[in-house]
């Protein structure tokens, strides 16, 4: 074909003018003459097709490819095939495919276009495949028909090439969706993503990586996912993204200062930058914080102080928190893989470190510990033991000052302390102290909740962390001090470290806990930071609680620095003390407040920290009071004052009502002030805030709180949440982490000796609008939170605290979310439905049959032969001991050690390879398949010895003289077989106790004994038959025969079986079958019937249906048209009707029927005697005339009969309904 090339090249349109090769060809080549010149203009394309100089071929392909991008051809295999064929067909193509399309013949045009494209594809295929020359062209994409949608990287051309070169078919058009197997795309419009929703839409990387790997990778891993939510217009989002990107750059550049710079200038620079940044950042935030207040001017949003809000709502309330600002440090740090491996959730000891440093974790753990302590102490008190070791600090309690009240308080304090108590009181104390708590508790339970004589104190440290930290930093007193992780200038001005506690001096500057250090510095540049001192907090907290414990009747641990105590008893005793010692016109000083002050000073002495105490008669008011009491004071809300104190407060000043409640109140009720809300009715409050909250608020406003102190609230759940530093790169990391988390949860469960039945997985996933790195360093940023729950089932349906089970469940849940692991920002595992783990000795639920696990024999490479076979657990015990004596030595068979043999005996043999169903085999998972394959391979090399070996030694299970039964490993895992076996046990005691039964276990054959054929014969068996027998039976028979031979009658081998067999038949009977109670039976009392003599003698007709009875009545009336009704008949009908009406004898449908019948009777009477219905008795005419009844007489008789019956019916009906029946 090469020499033809110049002929085709006559059309200069298809070559660039300055193509040197072309020009050269033009010059050098001798033109063939008229023929080609005449053809050339008409079929230029074809010519070109026939002559492929390398460059020109490429060029052309590129040209036509550019067409492909927009419009595409369909697969045309016929055409395609024809291209490869002989020249004659090619000539045909000249005329057809490459012929000019006539105007208006679009269909033809398209057909040709497609055909041409496929021709080009085919060219790719063989052209370049041959070019490569080395390996044969791979066909990994064989069978794939791919359509490429939109712009892709790599470009469509490259992809097309890839597809075609590797045996796939590329489609430029999608007009036949059923042909196309996959769609490649990098982006989809919403309409298209909907259109393609049932198709396999894949990212182009699939092909690229498949080619690189040399195999077709599973397309599922490359599924194209629509990046954004579809509702949004996508363009806008993209635009925003890029905007951020530019700010990232801005962030980053100055944040990496030149090394030489002094710190001051650095900070200055940074701060100026940060202000600059905040200006920059503001316009980008889609929800500028300003918009909130402007829409509801009356309620400025309460600012929220946290460094890492999770919802946009919260984020809106955090001042200076730019939702969409990425943390530059984090971004930088995350780029370093080493740092990443060491500091994010990927790090192996991440969880441990996290909990070591998490303040919240410490606090919650202590709280749990304290609660336990409280519960224990209470238990001790209830059981009569005195509180030991209280008041260990030995601080002398006393309020200086000589008033009687003070003395009384001191006295009681001392009594409570139990140490150095005034001797006089001792007797009383002893009497009171042990049973006090239990009794009073019981009393309280009965008492009306709103008992105004109760005294509840809310004791709360004043800025606990700070004041604890100041104890040995006296020089920092009266200075603005905060406690946070970040120390000194560490973290710089931009520290996102959260402030845990701020001193009162710092609070004056507006610093609040929850703020970031950065914000605090803005408010007060000279703020001093001190570190956490968890040990000290713990110590103080314990002291605090110890003191409270001594004085309280009841105590609720709220948190480490906060507790609610019930001191009703102590205060009451102070009262009596005062009234005893003093005249009754006691001074108006409040003993409760005195007592509180005493407690305060005691705590101060013990810890050096100030405590504030709020006193009231219920919890809610006590909390309000402690707010008033702060700092360093006490406050008593008397029941009478409650309303007036509450009135000016705001709804969120009440404990338990927060921002959300406040918003709702503002929106729906137009007020947040308690005084105003007090005007609203309960219904209104409930409508606005929901039933529970509304009711609580309604009561709270009125100073009512029915909650009791919860000193012994049982633990409901155990959880472990981490939402800091969660940055995974792939699913493996996430899985590992989940398991670590599960381990932590399991440890905690074990710590409190609990097992759980349900598991909740909480996932925080980066909000699509949030930046990859949250504004808080390594924080979670804006997130979508998802939770899922699953039943936690260990084997046997038990509750569990096994980390493996927990991890498995949690991971399964996480997988079911199908989240991108890189998007995860927080993971929490919570186990609830807790139970004491000790109590579950007897297994609940379904027993598990402990099938022997399949031991897959591993092929050992030859080099490993020296290695001993995998050691099997030696069968541990013989459970069944036959009463047999040693067997003849003659019979002794070659015994082998069980352990030796076990390794060789595959538990489950494979069928021969020819028997394997090929299709099933192919459907097996790859691993298993490989394993089987290798196993078969091994066998084909070393064929198994046939069971009956040429040595005429038959393999038999051995029977050791001492154990008739083979050794059986009875380790029934996790299930209490005893329970079941006891039920299954035979009633009569057999000599062999099947106590530990082997029922549930496939009998192992731990001993393989080869028994010589001679012995088989000797024992009296036909060797051939014997060989055919199943192993178990062989064993039985041999044993049996040996027993017989040894002259012992003992147990025949059938013995145990005979015992067991009936059991299996008895099984249904012995099983504790739950016989359901018989279902209730409907009761349809037989309706009253109208009996009549039938025509046939002895038969009676019963009429109960309305129609029938009506017919009877009709016949009756008709037969008595000429006579007055017979009184017997009347009575007969009356009896029936009354029965129907009478509720005691009939249902209401009887009444219905009676009325229908009576109505019909009435109709009949009206029809025949209508005139007489309302006839007055006064103008009664002749009733009888000459022995004949007049019609009047008959009529009147009928009517009176009717009225009589109706009267009887009314009387009956009246008993149930009152009044009388209407026949209208």
């Amino acid at each position, binding site marked *: 074909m090469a020499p033809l090339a110049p002929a085709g090249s006559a059309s200069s349109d298809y070559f660039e003018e300055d193509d040197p090769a072309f020009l050269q060809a033009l010059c050098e080549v001798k033109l063939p003459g008229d023929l080609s010149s005449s053809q050339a203009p008409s079929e230029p394309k074809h010519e070109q097709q026939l002559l492929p100089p390398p460059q020109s071929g490429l060029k052309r392909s590129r040209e036509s490819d550019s067409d492909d991008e927009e419009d595409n051809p369909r697969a045309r295999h016929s055409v395609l095939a024809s291209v490869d064929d002989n020249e004659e067909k090619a000539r045909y193509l000249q005329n057809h495919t490459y012929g000019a399309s006539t105007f208006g013949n679009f269909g033809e045009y398209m057909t040709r276009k497609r055909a041409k494209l496929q021709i080009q594809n085919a060219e790719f295929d063989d052209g370049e495949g041959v070019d490569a020359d080395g390996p044969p062209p791979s066909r990994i994409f064989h069978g794939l028909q791919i359509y490429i949608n939109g712009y892709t990287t790599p470009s469509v051309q490259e992809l097309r090439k890839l597809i075609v070169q590797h045996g796939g078919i590329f489609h430029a058009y999608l007009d036949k969706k059923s042909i196309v197997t996959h769609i490649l795309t990098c982006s989809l419009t919403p309409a298209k993503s909907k259109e393609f929703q049932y198709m396999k839409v894949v990212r182009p990387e699939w092909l690229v990586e498949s080619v690189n790997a040399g195999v077709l990778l599973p397309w599922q891993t490359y599924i194209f996912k629509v990046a954004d939510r579809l509702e949004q217009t996508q363009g806008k989002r993209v635009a925003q993204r890029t905007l951020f990107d530019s700010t990232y750059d801005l962030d980053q550049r100055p944040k990496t200062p030149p090394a030489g710079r002094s710190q001051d200038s650095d900070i200055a620079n940074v701060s100026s930058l940060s202000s600059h940044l905040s200006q920059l950042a503001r316009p980008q935030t889609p929800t500028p914080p300003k918009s909130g207040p402007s829409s509801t001017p009356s309620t400025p949003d309460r600012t929220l102080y946290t460094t890492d809000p999770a919802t946009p709502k919260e984020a809106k309330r955090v001042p200076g928190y730019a939702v969409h600002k990425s943390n530059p440090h984090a971004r930088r740090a995350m780029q370093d893989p080493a740092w990443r491996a060491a500091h994010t959730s990927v790090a192996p000891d991440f969880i441990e470190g996290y909990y070591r440093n998490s303040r919240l974790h410490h606090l919650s753990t202590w709280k749990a510990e304290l609660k336990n302590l409280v519960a224990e102490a209470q238990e001790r008190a209830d059981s009569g033991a005195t509180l030991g070791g209280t008041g260990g600090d030995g601080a002398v309690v006393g309020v200086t000052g000589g008033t009687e009240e003070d003395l009384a308080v001191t006295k009681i304090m001392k009594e409570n302390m139990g140490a150095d108590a005034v001797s006089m009181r001792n007797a009383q104390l002893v009497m009171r102290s042990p049973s006090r708590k239990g009794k009073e508790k019981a009393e309280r339970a009965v008492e009306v909740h709103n008992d105004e004589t109760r005294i509840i104190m809310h004791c709360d440290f004043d800025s606990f962390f700070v004041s604890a930290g100041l104890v040995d930093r006296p020089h920092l007193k009266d200075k603005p001090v905060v406690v946070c992780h970040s120390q000194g200038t560490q973290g710089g001005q931009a520290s996102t470290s959260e402030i845990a506690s701020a001193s009162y001096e710092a609070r004056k500057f507006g610093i609040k806990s929850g703020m970031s250090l950065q914000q605090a510095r803005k408010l007060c540049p000279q703020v001093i930071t001190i570190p956490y001192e968890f040990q000290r907090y713990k110590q103080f907290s314990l002291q605090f609680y110890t003191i409270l414990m001594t004085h309280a009747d009841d105590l609720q641990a709220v948190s480490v620095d906060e507790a609610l105590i019930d001191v009703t008893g102590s205060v009451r005793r102070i009262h009596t003390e005062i009234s005893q010692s003093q005249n009754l016109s006691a001074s108006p000083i409040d003993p409760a407040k005195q007592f509180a002050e005493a407690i305060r000073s005691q705590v101060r002495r013990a810890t050096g920290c100030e405590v504030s105490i709020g006193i009231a008669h219920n919890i809610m008011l006590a909390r309000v009071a402690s707010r008033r009491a702060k700092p360093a004071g006490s406050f008593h809300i008397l029941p009478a004052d409650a309303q007036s104190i509450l009135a000016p407060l705001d709804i969120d000043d009440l404990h338990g009502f927060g921002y959300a409640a406040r918003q709702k109140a503002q929106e729906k009720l137009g007020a947040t002030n308690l005084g105003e809300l007090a005007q609203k009715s309960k219904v209104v409050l409930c409508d606005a805030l929901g039933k529970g909250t509304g009711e609580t608020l309604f009561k709270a406003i009125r100073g009512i709180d029915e909650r009791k102190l919860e000193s012994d609230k049982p633990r409901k759940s155990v959880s472990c949440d981490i939402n800091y530093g969660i940055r995974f790169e792939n699913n493996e990391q996430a899985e590992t982490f989940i398991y670590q988390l599960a381990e932590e949860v399991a440890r905690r469960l074990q710590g409190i000796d609990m097992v759980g039945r349900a598991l909740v997985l909480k996932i925080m996933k980066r909000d699509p609008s949030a930046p990859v790195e949250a504004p808080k360093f390594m924080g979670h940023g804006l997130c979508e939170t998802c939770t899922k729950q699953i039943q936690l089932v260990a084997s046997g349906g038990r509750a569990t605290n096994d980390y493996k089970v927990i991890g498995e469940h949690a991971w399964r849940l996480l997988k079911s979310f199908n989240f991108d692991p890189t998007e995860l920002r927080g993971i929490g595992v919570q186990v609830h439905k807790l139970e004491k783990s000790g109590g579950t000795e007897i297994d609940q639920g379904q027993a598990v049959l402990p099938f022997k696990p399949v031991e897959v024999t591993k092929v050992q490479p030859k080099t490993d032969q020296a290695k001993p076979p995998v050691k099997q657990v030696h069968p541990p015990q013989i459970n069944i001991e036959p009463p047999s004596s040693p067997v003849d030595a003659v019979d002794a068979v070659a015994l082998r050690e069980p352990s030796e043999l076990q390794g060789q005996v595959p538990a489950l043999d494979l069928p021969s390879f020819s028997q394997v169903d090929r299709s099933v085999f192919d459907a097996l998972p790859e691993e298993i398949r490989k394993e089987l394959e290798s196993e078969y391979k091994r066998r084909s090399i070393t064929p198994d010895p046939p069971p009956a070996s040429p040595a005429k030694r038959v393999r038999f299970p051995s029977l050791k003289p001492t154990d008739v039964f083979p050794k059986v490993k009875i380790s029934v895992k996790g299930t209490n077989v005893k329970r079941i076996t006891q039920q299954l046990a035979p009633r009569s005691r057999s000599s062999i106790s099947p106590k530990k039964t082997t029922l549930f276990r496939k009998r192992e054959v731990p001993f393989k004994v080869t028994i010589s054929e001679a012995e088989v014969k000797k024992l009296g068996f036909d060797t051939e038959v014997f060989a055919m027998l199943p192993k178990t039976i062989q064993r039985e028979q041999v044993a049996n025969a040996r027993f017989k031979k040894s002259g012992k009658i003992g147990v025949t081998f059938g013995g145990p079986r005979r015992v067991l067999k009936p059991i299996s038949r008895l099984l249904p009977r012995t099983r504790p079958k739950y016989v359901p*109670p018989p279902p*209730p039976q*409907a009761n349809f009392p037989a309706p009253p019937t109208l009996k009549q003599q039938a025509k046939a003698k002895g038969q009676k007709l019963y009429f109960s249906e309305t129609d029938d009875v009506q017919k009877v009545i009709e016949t009756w009336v008709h037969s008595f048209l000429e006579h007055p009704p017979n009184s017997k008949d009347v009575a007969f009908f009356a009896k029936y009707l009354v029965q129907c009406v009478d509720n005691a004898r009939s*249902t*209401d449908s009887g009444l219905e029927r009676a*009325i229908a019948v009576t109505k019909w009777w009435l109709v009949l009477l009206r029809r025949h005697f209508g005139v007489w219905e309302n006839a007055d008795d006064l103008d009664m005419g002749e009733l009888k005339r000459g022995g004949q009844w007049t019609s009047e007489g008959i009529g009147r008789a009928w009517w009176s009969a009717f009225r009589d019956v109706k009267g009887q019916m009314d009387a009956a009906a009246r008993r149930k309904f*009152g*009044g*009388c*029946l209407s026949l209208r």
Partner: protein
Amino acid sequence: MDPDTPLSFNQTVRGITEFIEVATHTILYVRQVYPAEIFVRRKKYNTPVFQSRHPALNEYISGAVKAVADELMLVHGNVHKVVVVIKNNEDVALERFIFAMQNMIQVEAYNKETGYATFDASEHLIHSSTYSVEDAMTASVLGQYFRSFLIKLSMVESQLGQLGLGDDLSFAIVIELKDDKMPTVTHGKDPPPWIPATLDNTTTGTSEQAELHMLRAVDTGIINLSFAVQESEFKLNMEKSSTASSSGKGKERAV
């Protein structure tokens, strides 16, 4: 739940109370206790019914019916009747729509619910069944009965005539228990839902002249229900006096 298996006890109670609720709405519409505008037409038991749209009214009705249901469920057999009393503004009963109930069987608590299954130790299903009452009416049949109840109810005007009292009507829901029984159900600290009824509104207070129209009755075999309307003597007298004044009307009806 298969509508063709026999009813269980609780199903029956639920069915009856639901019907009472539906019927109450329709009564209020049919008897024009409230203006027709506040009702919407709906389909229930395959028949058009009218339901009030007034939330407070709906709440009252559903609350009362709920209380009825509680009485029926917990101490079944005590409730004898549920009566919707239409009364004038002086609290005098004009019409009493009576739902009379009769407990036919005693059902143990464990038998009331709708279904159960029995398993053996290894959780194989041995037996599964419902606590259907054997031979009792099926749900679908009961629904058809209720349909006929409602159709009768919607045509009751032809028997009772129009009340024509305009705004002076009101209604009450009354339960009548067996003698010497008290309503038992209280919810926590809420006051018990029931208060003693005006004697006039009760069966005992009904005069002998009151007329009872039995609309329909159904025997479910568990709780038999009948539905009747009783015109009080007061109403009948009122009508008589009005027919006396405007002659002819009463006669037409008497035919």
